[in-house]
Structure formats: structure tokens, C-alpha cells
């Protein structure tokens, strides 16, 4: 974890997981979200042409994380829309408000490299370790 915030993938059986970290809780939500999108499209350029708002509430932190990442999958697979930038504000209890900037998937310049079926609850973690927040989820591929 040389960078103060970021996201990397790890192996989980035949599947893969995401591990995100950052100084603020908001950072890990943002990093995990962008990390998931990057896992699907691998570094393709996304123009921040349109802004979308997302509000979520969940019974606990891990559920909020899983649901939040599920929003990224729905935007891509359900709306045909690719997120490129994100700003998260974590609220009271287990809630968040976010703004996401991105663009409609254009088959001329975007290509879905991996089909991520879902973000699972299996082994999901959201915790504070020293000065940093960490998040972990397993993906179903």
C-alpha cells in the first residue's frame, strides 16, 4: 500500500476480489467503485459528459459497500453507461450520497473486457486499520 489511497484486485478461488484503501471512508468507496469499473474496462478513457446522483442506505457498512458497487454494475449492464469519475459523501448511519460522471457506452471506443456478474457479500469487510480505511469484496465472474 505505497499510495495513500487505491484499489487492487486479489484472487479468490476461480473468481477475484477488490481491496481498496484510503485515509477517509469516502476514499475507499470511491476507490473501490473506480477499481471495479477499471476491472471491467481496463483503463479505457471515459469522458465525464453526464452527471448522475445516487443515494443509498443499508443496514450496515458492508452491505452499503456491496450495494454501492452493485450500482456500478447496474449503470454499466442495465443502463449502458460507463462511470469515469465519482465523488462520495458518507452520511449518518449507513448511508451515502454520490455524484458520478461518465458517458453512454459507445461501441466505437469502449469495450467491455470482463463480465462481472455481481458483487458478493462473501467475506466483505469495511474497517479502519490505524489511520486508514480498508474495504474488501469478492466478485462473481
Amino acid at each position, binding site marked *: 500500500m505505497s499510495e495513500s489511497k487505491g484499489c487492487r*484486485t*486479489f*484472487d*479468490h*478461488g*476461480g*473468481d*477475484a476480489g477488490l481491496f481498496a484503501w484510503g485515509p477517509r471512508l469516502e476514499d475507499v468507496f470511491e476507490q473501490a467503485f473506480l477499481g471495479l469499473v477499471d476491472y471491467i474496462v*481496463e483503463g479505457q478513457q471515459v469522458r465525464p459528459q453526464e452527471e448522475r446522483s445516487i443515494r443509498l442506505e443499508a*443496514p450496515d457498512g*458492508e*452491505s452499503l459497500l*456491496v*450495494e454501492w458497487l*452493485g450500482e456500478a*454494475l*447496474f449503470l454499466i*449492464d*442495465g*443502463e*449502458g453507461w460507463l462511470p469515469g469519475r465519482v465523488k462520495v459523501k458518507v452520511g449518518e448511519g449507513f448511508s451515502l450520497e454520490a455524484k458520478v460522471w461518465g458517458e453512454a*457506452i459507445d*461501441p466505437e471506443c*469502449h*469495450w*467491455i*473486457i*470482463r*463480465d462481472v*456478474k*455481481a*458483487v*458478493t*457479500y*462473501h*467475506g*466483505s469487510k469495511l474497517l479502519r486499520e490505524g489511520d486508514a480505511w480498508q474495504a474488501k469484496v*469478492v466478485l*462473481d*465472474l
Partner: protein
Amino acid sequence: MVWDLEKLDEYRWQIPRGYKPGMLVPGLIFIDGEELANLKEEGQALEQVANAACLPGIVGFAYAMPDIHTGYGLPIGGVVATKLPDGLITPGGVGYDINCGVRLLATPWREEDLEDKWSDLADELYRAIPSGLGDKGGLKIAQGDLDRVLCQGAAWAVEQGMGSQEDLSMSEEEGEMAGADPDAVSQRAKKRGQGQLGTLGSGNHFVEVQVVDRIYREEEARVMGLSQGQVVVMIHSGSRGLGHQVCSDYTRRMVEAMGRYGIKLPDRQLAGAPLSSPEGKRYFGAMVAAANYAWANRQVLTHRVREALRQVMGHGEIRVVWDVAHNIAKIEEHIVDGEELKLCVHRKGATRALPGGHRLLPEVYRGMGQPVLVPGDMGSGSYVLVGNRGEGFASACHGAGRRLSRGEAKRLLQRDEVFAELAEAGVELRAASRQVVLEEAPTAYKDVDEVVRISEGAGLTRQVLRLAPRCVIKG
């Protein structure tokens, strides 16, 4: 983790009930000593079997088939049954790709008929079968029609002229499972499913043209109308985004509902509710709807395969041999400890494998048992087996099982070598994503020969024939 498993015989290993607090039944894994050693080293898949043994209402054993590997919630290859009316139903026991399954088509052509046409056929199939990723290519269906797809499954596609009544009779549940509740499927799930019918998806999904290259049991092969050198087509796909969303939606609801029912489980991914509860009933109705979507999808893919084959080969009857679901929960009757019980059988990465004589089989297969379709990796073979003794709630393996994670495959394998290896094996590969080719390379998978050998050794199935791939279409 020290695993002290009890050896029942060469192919049966038991995780005792005392292994972990909360286990209601023992775990039973159909595997041999060598494969078990690998599992013990990895550890997580066995732990997941023990977790599944804690599901309220579970009966018999928490089973794992010979292709067991680590999943989330239930391991891949897991089979668990809970007793009606109050046993648990869990979306995590079915998986995200509801009714992911395999269909086998028999063509009238022989290997030599396609001698110089393999490449043309691969091109034509690749054109006809959209992956559904990014650039979609699914059927355009109206909102009202989607609800009919969710209720009628493959029968909807046949009604639209994409197949025949004979196709339906050669499918588990005849491609139309009863009990679908389209209103229990969220708008989000429907939105994801709306444009994806008739698409393959990515990852391990494929359409393969194969050749029967070895027959082990002539009589069973004859009953299925298959002979040495015959060209067949295997389709592996599921319920696409619609099914994934149904599982996500209901896992979230079940996580919330568990507290209300006072249920505690070692893994939240196993979250569930009693089948008789409002949450349980609603999930079951939504899951059946997604399963029907998957059957409709395989029927539309069948239609597209037929069109592509006829484009290259001219007219000829292309018949459905069988269609199996390998991620599903079903209400079935089984005898447990001498008592006939109505059960909710969850199969996740496992195939139903009814023994001969079973009333649910179509007449043609009733004598020999249900065909079990086991795809291997894209460079080696796939198998057709038949159900044998009906153990493990009449279940068997569903595939080779991964040896390398996708990350390891990407790190360890070279793309050019994978393509060269496939070319050497005489396989025409067409893939939307070169990345997926690497992750799905033959070396990333366990040896499917071993899996079916163990399945036969354990008496779950009888080997009928082996299929060698010639054209592989991947998303």
C-alpha cells in the same frame, strides 16, 4: 487448518458434524485422495461445505460433487436440500447466474462433411451469436413479452418460431419451470434482461462445435442418437444480467430478513429465509422466472446456431439432445433415512442426474437415466454421462472446475501460446475479448477426465461419450 476427514470409501469423504459449531448434518464430498489433498491445502471450499451444513432445515448431508472448488456461500459443486415447509431457501445456494446450464444439439453431419468448412462455420457462428457485452445484439422484446418469457421460458421462444415442441420435451423442466412470479422480479432486473435475450455473455460461457471422439457405452449413445465422428453443438449460457440482479436483490433482502427469523449463519452469502415465509416465496418465484429466462435464452441461441449451421452446411435436422440447469433450486421428492420428503434442493455448479426409471424423465431416456452434460475447457474434451444411482439428491458434477484463478491465469500464461496451443489442437477460436481467452485457457482448468472418472467411481454417473472441440465461440 487441520482437516480430519473421515474416509467412507475410495470416493466418499465425510466432514463430521462436530467439525464446527452449528453444523446440523455432516458434509459429504465425492472425491479421491489426491484431489482431496489439494482441497485441504486450499481449505476454503471445505469450509464452505461445513458452513452449508448449518442451513436451518438441512437434511441428509451437505454434499459436494467431484468438481468442488471455492465459491462464495455454497462452494461450486455444492448440493444441499432443506425440508419443506420451513427449511431455508438461500439465493447463495443457487448463485448469481440462475439456471446457468448446458444444452447439447446433434447435427446430421459428420466430421468429414466439415473438412474445409471449420473456419467458415466459426466465422458464421461468431457473427450469429452476440456476446451481449458493450455492443449488445440481443432480441428486441416488448416489456409485456418479457413477463411472458419469465413465465413460459423456452416455450415463449418456440411460440415465436424459434424451435419446436420436440426441443422442449428434451429439456429439464421442459424449459418452462412452474411457479414463476414476474412481479417478484425487480424493474432493475427486467431492465438488464430486456436487451440481452439471445446473447451468450462472457467468462466461461461458450458455443462449441464438437465431434464425438470416443464412445464408452454404445447403447446409451444410440438412445441419444449419437455416434462416433458425429458433429454436435454445445451451448453454455445462463440468465444474463436479469438473473444476476435477481440474486443480488434477494441476497440483500435475505441479509435483512435473517434477523427477523432469528437465523444466524457463518457466511452472510448464505443468507436465506424459510421457504414458507413471504421472503422465501418471493425469492422462489423470482428465481423460477430467471430460470425460465435462461431456458428462453438457450432456445434463442439454439435458433441462432441452427441458422448459422444451415448457412454453411445447407439444410439438415438439428436436434436437441438434452438441456441441463446447473445453478438452481427446485422442489423435489427424495427418500432420506427411509422417509419420502418434499425438499428444496439447491444445486450450485452441480447437475441433476436422475437414475433410470425416474418418472420425470422423457420416455426415450427413462430406461437409461438422465443425460448429464459436462463441459471441459475449450482445448480439451467435454463429456456426456448419464445419471446412475441417484445419490446426493440425484446430482453430479457440472464441469472441470478451475485450477488457476483468473488472476493467476493472466499472470502465468502467454496469450500467443494459448492461441498456438488451440491451433495445434485443431480448434478454431473466435472470441470477443482476448483477455477472456487467457483467463479461460485450458491450463486454467482442472482435468475434466479426472472429474468424470471420480463421478463414475463414486457411482454418481456412467460415462457415455467424449466430445472434442473444433470451433469455440466465446464472449
